[in-house]
């Protein structure tokens, strides 16, 4: 038995506008650019891919299943700039074949810096998924699949989740296969689903690479690779950015044709099926404990946090940001709080990454900056303004206007 478990990440940040030290307004975000990117990706990826997914689900009468993790910040942008995209996700939700995962509303790295903020953002995300899609997330994926043992423990304390997704990196699995269900140490009921990065990256990164010896990749061939897992595992976890379809891999690469034929190819073998992450967690017992004392992610070749926290600028920016948590929350100003949270989106720190020479291409994707230095300068200017708003004009109001954080 081999189950194919698809999860797609749907996310776009609120990019900052060019903000200099001489600016003093609070319009930090580039509405024009954000709307433009949102609509562009909607046209090239979200709308056509959603339509195709809907067709496939109907065509296979419930046997084709998928999962999405959609961040709060892109859901807000859909509502504002591309409501038809939101409607098409809602239509998918109604098929009963689509699962929505939980994550931090702001696609943040808050787990690393503020457990309180981390919990609040998971809760905010849960509520927006309930509101828009009528589901309560049971599976958690952290921003960029950042994961370690402590995250599993924290998440179990927060409660409400059955499993966590993480990168099936070689250095955490050793000789073991990602195609089984595992569990983290020191937890009672959480399960761990690990990304099969070889097969996932065949679709997400190598699909259009003409230098790759498997090019061109057709659904039939991919189906055979999945068949090969039969007897060696339960599940093939294919975790990819949704923008793979039509944006990272353009339509003319044949990516949509690949996707159109994939379910039928997989289902040709009666031993195969599609499962959502929560179905995988329900269906299979954990075979072993996977110990992950150090942080892993799904980024670059290092699978670590160096893309977000690898240089002094990134470290400085994110620490300064989280240092403001108490002051921001003490003001009780909801606009200020929302701005502070939008600055937590991991993309802002990704833009400051200086590891260009090896991983340059991926880092350039919708990056509004010419250089990581420009990105840092812009971010720090915004942060400087945000900090200046944290000083209440009437100090005595401070304690009385404290807004309690969601649990």
């Amino acid at each position, binding site marked *: 038995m081999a189950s194919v478990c698809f999860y797609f990440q749907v996310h776009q940040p609120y990019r900052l506008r060019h903000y200099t030290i001489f600016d003093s307004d609070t319009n930090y975000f580039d509405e024009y650019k954000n709307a433009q990117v949102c609509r562009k990706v909607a046209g090239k990826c979200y709308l056509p891919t959603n339509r195709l997914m809907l067709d496939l689900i109907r065509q296979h009468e419930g046997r084709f299943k998928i999962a999405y993790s959609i961040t709060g910040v892109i859901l807000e942008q859909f509502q504002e700039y591309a409501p038809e995209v939101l409607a098409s996700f809602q239509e998918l939700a109604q098929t009963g074949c689509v699962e929505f995962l939980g994550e931090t509303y702001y696609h943040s790295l808050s787990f690393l810096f503020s457990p309180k903020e981390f919990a609040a953002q998971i809760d905010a995300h849960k509520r927006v998924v309930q509101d828009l899609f009528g589901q309560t997330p049971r599976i958690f994926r952290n921003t960029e699949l950042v994961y370690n043992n402590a995250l599993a423990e924290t998440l179990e304390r927060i409660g409400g989740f059955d499993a966590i997704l993480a990168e099936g990196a070689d250095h955490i699995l050793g000789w073991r296969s990602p195609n089984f269900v595992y569990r983290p140490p020191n937890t009672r009921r959480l399960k761990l689903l690990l990304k099969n990065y070889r097969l996932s990256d065949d679709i997400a990164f190598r699909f259009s690479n003409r230098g790759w010896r498997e090019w061109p990749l057709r659904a039939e061939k991919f189906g055979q690779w999945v068949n090969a897992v039969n007897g060696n595992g339960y599940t093939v976890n294919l975790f990819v950015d949704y923008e793979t379809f039509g944006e990272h891999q353009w339509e003319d690469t044949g990516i949509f044709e690949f996707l159109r034929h994939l379910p039928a190819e997989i289902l040709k073998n009666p031993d195969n099926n599609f499962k959502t992450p929560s179905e995988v967690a329900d269906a299979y017992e954990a075979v072993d404990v996977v110990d992950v004392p150090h942080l892993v992610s799904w980024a670059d070749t290092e699978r670590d946090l160096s893309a977000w926290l690898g*240089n002094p600028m990134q470290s*400085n920016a994110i620490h300064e940001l989280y240092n403001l948590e108490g002051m921001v929350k003490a003001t009780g100003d909801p606009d200020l709080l929302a701005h502070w949270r939008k600055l937590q989106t991991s993309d802002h720190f990704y833009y400051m990454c200086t590891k260009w020479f090896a991983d340059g291409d991926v880092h350039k994707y919708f990056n509004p900056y010419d*250089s990581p230095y420009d990105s840092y300068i812009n971010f720090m200017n915004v942060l400087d303004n945000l900090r200046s708003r944290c000083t209440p004009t009437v100090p005595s109001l401070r304690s009385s206007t404290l807004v309690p954080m969601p649990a």
Partner: protein
Amino acid sequence: MKIRTLMLGWEFPPYISGGLGTACYGLTKAMGRMGMEVTFLLPRMGPVRMAGNPEMTLESGFPHVRLRAVPSSLIAYGRRGNPPSAQPATTGAAVLEEEPGGPAPYGPNICEEVQRYALRVMKIAESEEFDVIHAHDWMTFPAGIALSARSGKPLVVQVHSTEFDRSGEHVNQYVYDIERHGMHAAARVITVSNYTRNIVVSRYSVPPEKVEVVYNGIDFNDFGQAVPPQAAQVGGDKVVLFLGRITMQKGPEYFLYAAKKVLEREKNVKFVMAGDGDRLYGTIDLAAWLGIGHKVFFTRFLRGAEVDRVYRMADLYVMPSVSEPFGIAPLEALQHNVPVLVSKSSGIAEAFRNALKVDFWDIDEMANKIIAVLRHPPLQETLRTNGRKEALRFRWEDSAARVNEVYHKVLNVA
């Protein structure tokens, strides 16, 4: 095949007044190290003198390079940007070559001097054997053209700057004509960046396939060990440095306008302008007129240990050039552990990643970035570390190897 080059170049140590001299020296030295045969013709007022023992320097340092003097009062950049102190005045140096007929007089104007230089080059070349002529910037072009015509050897001209870089739109027609003539007469044109290549193609109508880009390098050996990064404190103030000729081309006034903006936000900062040039007094006036005279310090032309010292004081090096064909100076600043902000109108901006970049006219953005460096040590640190690492990759050996490729194309040999 071993190609013998007759090089018509500029300035050898100890007196180098700017990028042209630095480039000729660095390139030639690297060509020598790589075993390329070069005869370097150097315009000198008076005999060629080298600091220390010149024979030793030449033979041990770069054995394949021979130096010959061309009696001439021509100096790099003409009289536009040279410090008065840069006139040759070495003492205790050995005479390398017989001085034919006493010091050449200053010509009444530059045209005559360029012609006279060409005639003398022709004369000297009679006793030389060479396969290719390599001329650097316009003042040597007439000599290169004439020599190529007489000897039948191909001419390669290298453009370190054009009349448009030096004079904006107010070009000197005489200079422009010589540049254009040289570029068209040459078998190949070498430019020091794509930025300059575009100018050569669009403003001088040179066929693009004839123009090769060879980036400059920096001299490792002179900067073997890193200067301690700790800045020498200047009364606790941060220091922003302009170092270069103070001429229209270098954009000194944009530096001052940005300085004024910075000073509106940051009190504890000083601006140092190191260099001489025809805009020096105008720039001093402007600083006073902007009301920031007490924060801007003019050091005049610096050399040697003084340069090291001013770099040690600096928190940021700014190159606000209006038009900069390459820009070796930012690489030198990085070798001295000083992060850099450069004008986008430069060769270095296209070739280098770990620098801040601005449009020279965008005063607000220049000030914005200067303030960011002054306020955020992690920015300074990242620019410094990554910038220095990247700067060390600009090696003269690579430039020399590219020049060698160009020679092979010109001579049509493998």
